[in-house]
């Protein structure tokens, strides 16, 4: 019974994804969505992957990491090296990028996740910068002038597949006993430990999975823009991702997706007013934090049930009004 219910919602989500894909792909083919918005749609997908994966670390496991752009950079460069220097196919390059970022995440997570709160934030911030500056000084990958001549393999279809895949996998993780273990660490680390949960293991696991998906996002990124440049992966990028996580709600996947779409869209819409862009962006965030500090969705998920409750509520309201 329960199983049937789950499969049914999964199937519905799959159909919804297919519909969204068909509509956007149709609009692209019909030339209604031009190259500028195509680029931004791909960016939205990449940002969703980044935000959902960072939310796994920051929102669900409750660890404060702000070095996500570093892992994205590792993914971007490793995959670029694989496809340019070794002529590997795209999927292998992406797998390599994910693996590279994941391994680094594991190696870094093991010592730094002993820290918590502010200390972890500082450590991950430093880590992101170390990665960027290391890349800057490796002439094999182009150093300061960036890694050029990367083939454009990423298109809307690939982006869509990987975005859906990321959300699917991370959502499944959250809904399992492993995900519950991570959430229990956020809720109360001492109690989690007293319930037989190896907290260090799960912190490192969440960090590794998050880093690996940042690597996927990086791979898609470098294979869309022909170039991987260290300047794309500064701590400003990390903050961008973090902003989206907080805006959407720590611990809400649907919130992350909404925030990634919204903020990428706003920053694209404001692209022709560069002097106003950061101001409007910042004011928006200040207002949101004043009136909704828990983020758009808090730690709740947007679901059909919730939607029907809202619309149901509105219907009741209107009948009462009559």
């Amino acid at each position: 019974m329960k199983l049937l219910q789950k499969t049914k919602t999964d199937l519905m989500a799959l159909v919804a994804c297919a519909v969204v894909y068909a509509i956007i792909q149709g609009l692209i083919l019909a030339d209604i969505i031009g190259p500028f918005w195509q680029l931004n749609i791909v960016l939205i997908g990449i940002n969703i992957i980044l935000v959902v994966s960072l939310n796994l670390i920051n929102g669900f496991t409750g660890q404060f990491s702000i070095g996500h752009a570093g892992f994205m950079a590792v993914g971007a460069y490793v995959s670029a090296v694989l496809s340019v220097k070794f002529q590997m196919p795209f999927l292998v390059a992406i797998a390599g990028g994910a693996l590279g970022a994941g391994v680094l995440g594991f190696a870094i997570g093991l010592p730094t996740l002993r820290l918590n709160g502010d200390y972890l934030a500082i450590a991950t911030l430093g880590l992101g910068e170390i990665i960027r500056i290391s890349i800057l000084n490796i002439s094999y990958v182009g150093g300061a002038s960036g890694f050029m001549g990367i083939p454009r393999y990423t298109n809307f279809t690939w982006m869509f597949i990987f975005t859906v895949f990321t959300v699917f996998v991370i959502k499944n993780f959250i809904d399992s006993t492993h995900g519950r273990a991570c959430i229990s660490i956020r809720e109360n680390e001492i109690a989690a430990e007293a319930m037989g949960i190896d907290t260090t293991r799960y912190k490192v696991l969440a960090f590794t999975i998050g880093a690996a998906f940042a690597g996927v996002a990086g791979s898609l990124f470098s294979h869309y823009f022909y170039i991987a440049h260290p300047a794309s992966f500064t701590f400003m990028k990390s903050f961008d991702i973090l902003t989206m996580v907080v805006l959407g709600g720590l611990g809400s996947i649907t919130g992350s997706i909404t925030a990634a779409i919204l903020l990428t869209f706003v920053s694209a819409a404001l692209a022709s007013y560069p002097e106003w862009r950061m101001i409007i962006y910042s004011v928006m965030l200040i207002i949101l934090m004043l009136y909704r500090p828990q983020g758009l969705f808090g730690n709740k998920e947007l679901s059909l049930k919730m939607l029907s409750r809202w619309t149901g509520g509105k219907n009741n309201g209107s009948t009462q009004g009559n």
Partner: protein
Amino acid sequence: MALLKATKLSIVFGGLRAVSNFNVEIAPGELIGLIGPNGAGKTTAFNLLTGVYEPTEGQIEFDGQSIVGMKPYQITQRGIARTFQNIRLFADLTVLDNVKIAYHFHVKYGLMESLFRIGRYHSEEDEIEQKAIEFLEIFQLADKKDEIAKNLPYGEQRRLEIARALAAQPKLLLLDEPAAGMNPQETQQLMEMIRWIKDKFNLTILLIEHDMSLVMGVCERIYVLDYGSIIAQGTPNEIKNNPRVIEAYLGEEV
């Protein structure tokens, strides 16, 4: 053979000897109380037994094995579960999820099975849910399974914490002031519940408590802790009449 045996357990924080020469021996199936004035080191003793602190000296044997130096989660996995003096629920999660988490280390499906929802994932998740609900039914919390834990009334939060500890399926249950903040009637119910779960789950229980009616009412044997050392042990009646215990609680006669 003793289920839990602590010998000459001591811990020093800076210059303070919070617990020194702590000796207890608990046989399987016993219901033991640990009492003592405020600041005597009762909770510190619990933290030593559960691995939160590592003892400066001394030995702890559980089920025939030394557990000194193990991490708290390893000790829980060996069969010691606990509750906390200041309730530590997973406050923002539902009542049901709180209990489900305690099942964690009994779950067998692996990471890959959970990422792609294959293999044992579905059958085990269903089983976890079912068992968690059974536990909640025992503690009369089943109808509140979807409520957020922090929204429960105080007494129910205490009950949920005990339910959660039991869901980890321990051999030894440590209760840190389970009756704190309860009124006499609730305390009475709690007493009956403690007796009942002990038989039902075949448990051994060690409890810290200030409420003398509860301790004297349910415990078969009592240890008294003062200034970090055990000053007396015996049946409730022996303890009531022990001059050293009276002195510890009421002060010396002039």
